[in-house]
């Protein structure tokens, strides 16, 4: 088996099952409200996939993914907000035609750096480029100096804290603690009705699969193997002639871009963007999605994001006063008892029973629901 086909058989089966769940089972079984909710969960799955690449494959644990998620979300929100802030819709303001929160903050002209977000094309590019550029700066500074592990985690966490304070503090330009709210249409198409939400769910799902396939391609490429090699024996990779830092920077940027796409889809589906999704707490929760799914498993990341968010919603509906206990216990259990998350459980318990099948060396198994 020297020629690798793009997907092993079990990966193909795993993808098909996931596709079946996301494209068929959810839309059939869930009402509009729940489907939209699951769409929101899936927008977190983008981050989790990026984290599997960075953390699971590359050993880089970022506690600042919320920042990238937020950057993507804010780019999208800025575009939508500008579209919603027509002079007619904002006639009541002292300066019609600018977003309402700017008007409340005595800003009388659209800031220059907001202007390009009138263009949808620019916005789409910005969703990728802005987080990637930011990730590049952080990554370049840190990986070139071989900062890794704990220190990297803590510094990214501080960056998440700074981002939140900055967004909240600069409310004339960012909407402050409220965020950018009351988003209505995308290129004239109303994103609020149930029908639109369903469409957005599918767009989100398709993009998610796109991300998944890209991530798999990266993992399948020699790049992916170099990442694994770096995790096992970084010095050996270095002395095999690789510039380890540039690999880390690249994968960190990829993770950031994936998070940003998720953020943009989050904005579209939820209808606003706010700093509560940028800070430390959501960033750590994103890591938890990834850990619960299995830090090495791309498809596990999707299941992890779905499961944790679903549990959060359900627990908080059924036992609102107790759900933090459940969530906390889940974190601890995953770390202590199932370090490989759902994917690990699948590998250990479910897969052996499927051995009746033809055996294939799978790297990304899909956990059971």
């Amino acid at each position, binding site marked *: 088996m020297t020629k690798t086909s793009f997907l092993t058989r079990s990966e193909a089966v795993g993808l098909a099952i996931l596709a079946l769940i996301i494209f068929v089972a959810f839309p059939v079984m869930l009402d509009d*409200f729940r489907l939209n909710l699951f769409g*929101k969960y899936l927008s977190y799955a983008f981050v989790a996939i990026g984290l599997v690449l960075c953390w699971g494959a590359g050993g880089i644990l970022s506690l600042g993914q919320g920042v990238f998620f937020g950057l993507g979300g804010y780019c999208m929100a800025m575009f939508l907000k500008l579209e919603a802030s027509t002079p007619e819709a904002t006639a009541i303001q002292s300066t019609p035609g600018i977003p309402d929160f700017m008007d409340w903050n005595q800003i009388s002209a659209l800031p220059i750096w907001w202007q390009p977000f009138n263009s949808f094309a620019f916005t789409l590019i910005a969703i990728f480029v802005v987080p990637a550029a930011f990730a590049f700066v952080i990554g370049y500074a840190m990986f070139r100096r071989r900062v890794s592990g704990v220190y990297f985690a803590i510094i990214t966490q501080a960056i998440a804290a700074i981002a939140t304070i900055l967004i909240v503090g600069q409310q004339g330009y960012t909407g402050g603690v409220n965020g950018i709210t*009351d988003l209505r249409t995308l290129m004239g198409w109303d994103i609020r009705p149930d029908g639109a939400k369903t469409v957005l769910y599918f767009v989100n799902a398709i993009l998610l699969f796109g991300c998944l396939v890209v991530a798999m391609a990266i993992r399948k490429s020699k790049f992916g193997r170099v990442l694994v090699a770096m995790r096992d024996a970084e010095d050996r990779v270095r002395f095999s002639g690789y510039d380890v830092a540039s690999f880390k920077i690249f994968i960190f940027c990829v993770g950031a871009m994936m998070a940003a796409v998720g953020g943009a889809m989050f904005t579209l589906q939820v209808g606003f963007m706010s700093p509560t999704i940028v800070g430390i707490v959501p960033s750590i929760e994103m890591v938890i999605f990834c850990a619960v799914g299995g830090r090495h498993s791309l498809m596990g990341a999707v299941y992890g994001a779905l499961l944790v968010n679903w549990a959060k919603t359900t627990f908080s509906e059924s036992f609102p006063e107790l759900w933090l206990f459940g969530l906390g216990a889940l974190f601890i259990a995953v770390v202590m008892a199932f370090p490989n998350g759902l994917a690990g459980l699948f590998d250990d318990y479910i897969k052996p029973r499927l051995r009746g099948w033809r055996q294939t060396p799978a790297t990304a198994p899909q956990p059971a629901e």
Partner: protein
Amino acid sequence: MADQKKVPISPISRRAILAGGAALGASLFLPKGLRAQDFPTDQINTTGLAVTDDTVQVGILHSISGTMSISETGSVQAEKLAIEQINAQGGVLGRKIETIQEDGASDWPTFAEKARKLLVNDKVASVMGCWTSASRKAVLPVFEQHNGMLYYPTFYEGLEESPNVIYTGQEATQQIIAGLDWVAREKGAESFYLLGSDYIWPRTSNKIARKHIEDKLGGKVVGEEYYPLGHTQFNSVINKIRLKKPDVIYAIVVGGSNVAFYKQLKAAGIDMTEEAPLLLTISVTEDEIRGIGGENIEGAYACMKYFQSLENENNQEFVAAFKEMWGDDMVIGDVTQAAYLGPWLWKAAVEKAGSFDVDKVREASPGIELASAPEGYVKIHENHHLWSKTRVGHALADGQYEVVFETADLVEPDPFPEGYQ
């Protein structure tokens, strides 16, 4: 909207208020005898709300976890009390209120999610909820899209008027202007130091305050400053205040920062009982004082519409009922009282409309009066805010406020004040 602003102060005489109050007060605490069978469900609920022949479901949506649970707990308690009292009287149109409580978890997207759940899944007839502006902004599109009714209890920055929200707290001008007028008139204050937590309500409120101070009072703002939410170190700003020697510190600090601010102010030797400078706040209710400690804020003035110490019959009954339900050590602040009004205002609107349909309730809402309100008497304005009096309280060491001033008339709500934007 422009014409609403020109509505003159309601010409309700004091006698009329008292009479109305007595009538309504009597009505509140005696079973009214509206029997469910007089209102067939299919007639009073044409939009598929969760209304049966015996029950009607109402949502409660506050943070019971996360940082905001500190503030929102009182609102939940007040709303539950009101609902229990309404049920004890026979409910609304003969139907018992059942509550579905959701946790917004201090997270705005979660608020939006839960609001959708309450409206779309549970089909609740109305929702009592939200505390921060951010959470309200997050749920607002949901309420507008699914035509729900939200009773929002917090004093807030204004700049909003939604057909789907009844604002039971004061908007900024209602709360701020009377207090500033009072402090200028009674205390001769001329220079002010504005201070706040860094988010929209303090910033907007201070903007209004600054305009009023500079344009109307002819005073001077000597400093304006914001600290991140949760900030706990105020020694630097206290030094700046010493340097500027304002007559008034106008403080809109919220949450945990409040405790830090007042403790440090006291420790720095600024004794508020000496009123040099005087401290005026719009953000510290009795609830907050519990965390701050009465001894640390004694002597400060607060400007809002309700204090637990209000001496009227409605309030005495309310305070007694609240303590009976939630414990003797409870205190009640402005927002808690406003939250208590929500279910009653809704009930009154439903019964006036003779229907649970949101459109009819909305139509019936303007003009609804509540003479039994603990704060005295309130009335829903066309713009969905309440007419209410504004009062200034003087903080005592025991954690209560002594009311030192109240406006003679109800203050008209004006969420889009001209000249203050």
